[in-house]
């Protein structure tokens, strides 16, 4: 990559915008995963009683089991959301930036 292309990209407002919005999405989703997972972990430590309650009066299935499976499911959904946004929003901007810089 030449200096010229680098400086063109560096000064392209679209590039700065891309970096900003991608970082926002990345760190927001990462924070969500951490809140979910460490929330679950801390509930195990502090409020096991809530997790061991059955989901319904006549059921043996505890709330914690649904939450654990929920964290697994939510992880898959969040990765899906990131991939969707990256494919549909970020990739076209990257292509624009690259083609503008190589003009």
């Amino acid at each position, binding site marked *: 990559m030449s200096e010229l292309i680098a400086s063109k990209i560096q000064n392209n407002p679209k590039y700065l915008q891309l970096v900003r919005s991608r970082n926002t999405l990345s760190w927001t989703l*990462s924070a969500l995963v951490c809140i979910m997972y460490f929330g679950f972990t801390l509930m195990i430590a502090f409020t096991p009683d809530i997790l061991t309650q059955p989901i319904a009066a006549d*059921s043996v299935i505890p709330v914690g089991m649904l939450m654990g499976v929920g964290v697994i499911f939510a992880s898959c959904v969040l990765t899906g959301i990131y991939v969707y946004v990256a494919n549909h929003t970020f*990739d076209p901007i990257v292509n624009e930036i690259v083609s503008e810089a190589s003009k």
Partner: protein
Amino acid sequence: MKTLKTFAGAASLFASRFAFAADAPAEQPLNWHAIVMFLIFVAITLIITYWAATRTKTASDFYAAGRGITGLQNGMAIAGDFMSAASFLGIAALVYMNGFYGLIFSVGWLVGWPIILFLIAERLRNLGKYTYADVVSFRLQQGPVRTMAAIGSLIVVIWYLIGQAVGAGQLLHTLVPQISYRESIVVVGGLIIIYVTFGGMKATTWVQIIKAALLLGGATLMAIGVMAHEGFSFAKLFSDAVAIHPKHMDIMKSVVKIGAKANPLESISLGLTLMLGTAGLPHILMRFFTVTDSKAARKSVLYGTCFIGFFYILTFIIGFGAIVLVANNPEYVANISKSILDLKGGANMPAVYLSHAIGGDLFLGFIAAVAFATILAVVSGLTLAGASALSHDIYANVIMKGRASEKQEVWVSKMSVIGLGVLAVLLGFAFEKQNIAYIVGLTFSIAACTNFPILALSVFWRGLTTRGAVIGGYTGIFGSIGLLIVGPTIWTSILKMGPAIFPYDFPTFVVLPLVLIVAYIASVTDKSESAAKERAAFDAQMIRAETGLGAEAGAVAH
């Protein structure tokens, strides 16, 4: 203290300990189904290795499968690289013994994947060539940074290999008592040397893809078998398990292992270790260099996460299924008047016997062969990652300072594969009777405290300098090892030196912040000219990381 034992005990299951393997009766009939299916798997993988060998010519072919792997293929290979026999048999066994407690580990290992995707997968693909050290040393000094990163990788790889080798020996010996522990390990060592030296990353990838398909297929069939037996009702599955299990309703209350109390610090540290350790395993990070571009890298994590998440839910059903179908069954239980849970052949057998309860000898043979294939796939990936750290980082870039030819580098790689393969076999012999319960703690702690934070800092923080990366990295390596040695598993259980000086099994909650602080201070106080250049080079690195301009080209679709 009780919690510590709990986590240590759980961790030991994942360190591939197949207890009491040696006690399996010698007069047991030969398990023909397992052997035939295993031989079929070996034959297919050797054909693939031959095919891959004819197409492996350049260094990029050898290390990165020519960067021609698609997102879906890499997602399968990631799952194949990551789902170990220990997690298949181990999580099912934890659920079998303790109820839904095993879920905590599954969740911890899974949540590492979204983090890999959001923060590092694409940037890794855009910046690196063959190893994650390429990325860390992108704008820093090659020699010291690569040496540190390679040491971190090799410690993780070698200890992980010991766990796998011991697990392989005990598993195969338990399933086919006619083959001894040592013979089993030699078979594994020999096969992976053939796969990796001849077929490189292409063969490794396809072994992992086939293994993932077999493991997911086998586990799905088992789960369907369980659910069919229970009339496809989860409510019935769980109430039957509660009725049969000697701990009854407690198995549905076991958010921590029955009788233990969770300690918040311990839980957070375990969580951090599982999550960030996954994101710092060198053999996992290496998979991102095999895909065509950052878009494929991204997709591969999505597929991988879904496969692995699905697999963990299956192991959960399998564990509960084993309570219903295996426990209290005189065919599988060692001494039914003493305990209806303790199985012949050791603690990790519930999933294996469940396959027999569902599909007889044929299905048992299939699952046994799958478990063994699983070990082969994981060991291949580990060996290739270790060899690339030795050849690409240490030999080509530190010793030869980039002047080695591609041919020389690949030759050194192949020799390293043979060396690591032989080393794994010898260590497998040496550790046969050792307590290896600390292995998960050791490998995941170093990955979580060294590889992941240094990688993340180099990509996200302009201020990181060579001095910061190196001092921070060694702090992670030696800090983790030091605290593990004075921790409960090694200090108290193995060395028998009395109460542990550091009372936690996973030192991540201390070492990780320490690494970040040390790397920060060592970087900001670095006023040298080279440090200023390294900071200035961040902009160019970031452009490449974000746009992929200048990234290693992927193969054209073939």
